[in-house]
């Protein structure tokens, strides 16, 4: 994996006004980079702002503050149509709900070809058809499916149609917003395998948003853990799982049930109590170990460094 930065997120904030004086800080000052060709996993519990982060990056929401650099170019702020179109082709999204993400009134062919139609990628009807069929085969569906409607497909098949739609414009960066959480276990594996295969074939970069930690661990190279709009820990996937530092990450990891009865019988759960933090000081994002960042106060930082800094990264 190259260390070339594809996406840089700088102090990204997304606040929603919910009333005259109340503001929900869904995303509150995020900083992270995504390297070319990697899969960056973003995990957290419901309401922590992980989906909002994804949607803000792709401009579905206008950021309250901060910037998102894609290939060194800020994607937010004023843009003309041409620039936006170029950007839309580069960055694509896969959605969570396979039942809501496909227009029920459109044929699969038209759904997949929508991006090609908007950007004029197919010269004529024949080329369009051929491309759609090729994409269907790429995602493991039959050519004959092009003329069917979404309601005739199962959840997993629909999700693959959604992937084909995103691929139709040849993006280099794909935000996968909980792409498997609405799917059955056996189907999840199909989709994850497909995403991995596509990544290899097309040199894709993923931002993989999920709450299923074992799947995120499996697919991601690096993982960021979010808690109430802030990132509390960021590290290599293995490092994060083997040596979690932030107490919230530890509690999350200790809560995942694993398909192993013996392990489950002996599992010790760890509960996170946010009031244990020293609130007199605003915590900052600090690098405890090379590549392993934790949100902590100066005192905690010293403590973490002593305890975890020496452990060699595996």
């Amino acid at each position, binding site marked *: 994996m190259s260390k070339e930065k594809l996406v840089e997120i700088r102090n990204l904030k997304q606040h929603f006004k919910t009333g005259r004086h109340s503001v929900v800080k869904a995303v509150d000052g995020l900083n992270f980079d995504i390297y070319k060709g990697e899969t960056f996993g973003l995990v957290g*519990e419901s309401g922590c702002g992980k989906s909002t982060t994804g949607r803000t990056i792709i401009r579905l929401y206008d950021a309250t503050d901060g910037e998102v650099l894609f290939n060194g170019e800020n994607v937010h702020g004023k843009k003309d149509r041409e620039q936006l179109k170029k950007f839309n082709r580069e960055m694509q999204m896969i959605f969570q709900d396979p039942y809501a993400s496909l227009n029920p009134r459109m044929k699969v062919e038209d759904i997949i070809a929508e991006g090609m139609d908007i950007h004029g990628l197919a010269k004529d009807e024949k080329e369009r058809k051929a491309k759609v069929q090729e994409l269907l085969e790429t995602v493991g569906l039959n050519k004959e499916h092009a003329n069917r409607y979404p309601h005739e497909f199962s959840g997993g098949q629909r999700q693959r149609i959604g992937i084909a739609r995103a691929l139709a414009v040849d993006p280099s960066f794909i935000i996968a917003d909980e792409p498997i959480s609405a799917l059955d276990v056996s189907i999840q594996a199909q989709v994850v395998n497909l995403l991995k295969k596509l990544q290899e074939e097309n040199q894709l970069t993923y931002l993989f948003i999920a709450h299923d930690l074992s799947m995120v661990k499996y697919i991601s190279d690096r993982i960021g853990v979010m808690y109430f709009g802030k990132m509390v820990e960021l590290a290599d996937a293995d490092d994060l*799982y083997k040596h979690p530092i932030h107490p919230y990450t530890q509690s999350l990891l200790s809560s995942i049930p694993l*398909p192993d009865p013996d392990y489950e019988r002996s599992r010790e759960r760890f509960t996170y109590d946010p009031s244990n933090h020293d609130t007199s000081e605003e915590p900052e994002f600090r690098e405890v170990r090379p590549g392993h960042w934790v949100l902590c106060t100066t005192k905690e930082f010293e403590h973490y460094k002593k305890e975890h800094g020496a452990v060699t990264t595996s």
Partner: protein
Amino acid sequence: MEKLLDVKNLHVSFDTYGGEVQAVRGVNFDVKKGETLAIVGESGSGKSVTTKALMQLIPMPPGRIKEGEILFEGKDLAKLSEKEMQKIRGKDISMIFQDPMTSLNPTMKVGNQIMEGLIKHQKMNKTQARKRVVELLELVGIPDPESRMKQYPHQFSGGMRQRVVVAIALACNPKLLIADEPTTALDVTIQAQILELMKDIQKKTDSGIIFITHDLGVVANVADRVAVMYAGKIVEVGTVDDIFYNPKHPYTWGLLGSMPSLDSQDAELYAIPGSPPDLLNPPKGDAFAARNEYAMQIDLEQEPPMFKVSDTHYAATWLLHENAPNVEPPEAVKARMKGMATNASSDTEGERV
């Protein structure tokens, strides 16, 4: 141990304008006192329909119980009238649903919702019922129950709300508790709390639990025995160790293989190809054959019977027949089974039942 519930050859169908959808096609299982039976399967495998049929909660029409017996303490629930069923629902058998948002009445105080069942089934008066509500809320781990019972559901967080749902289900000391994906809508940390709570309560009350889920991690955590459902049938049933460490059915292999373990490196996940069959016209032979990489000619022609692997472990696959070739489960599953050979029987040949 005595059998609390014995389901025999249950068939449930839905009549739609497209034809008859056979959602449950001959299911047999039993639940004993104080044990947790987990039913796993994909959506559409009939696991929810099965348990709804137990409680007679299937809308009829279009649904109907075509065949079979549901013996609860010797009584056939399938033959009871709606009136008789109402006496059993909430008292002897109660149910926890998936979504704590919709299973509580938003306009009623939490305490009153719990009291409802107590007054109706236990013939308690208000003071007794109120005392019991406080006990129940304490039991499910809600702090300060005296004041919390006067609040409305929206004042509770998701996890707390599910605790209230559990308290309602437990109010009348049911002998059997049916939990239909009770933690799917919850975050992992909350899920872990609820699961612990349920295990804890079972120890105290000795009730039987049917736990429906698609999450094998949850199954490993709560279950004593596991039934794996596919296309309206139980394809494998056994103790939790049987299923996780010595699975025999290729579908179970697929389910286990498709879960990444936390230390698995970049190996590709073992995925079951394709999608579940359409139960409007179920395929001939083994319903899983089309997705089974070990499928044999016979799978396409005849439905496999249940083969006995051990006293507690049965699986419906022709692979267990004496004439079948020996096949090895996929690598991902073998890795899981490793080190567990001690308490799993190693014979691959099954005895037909």
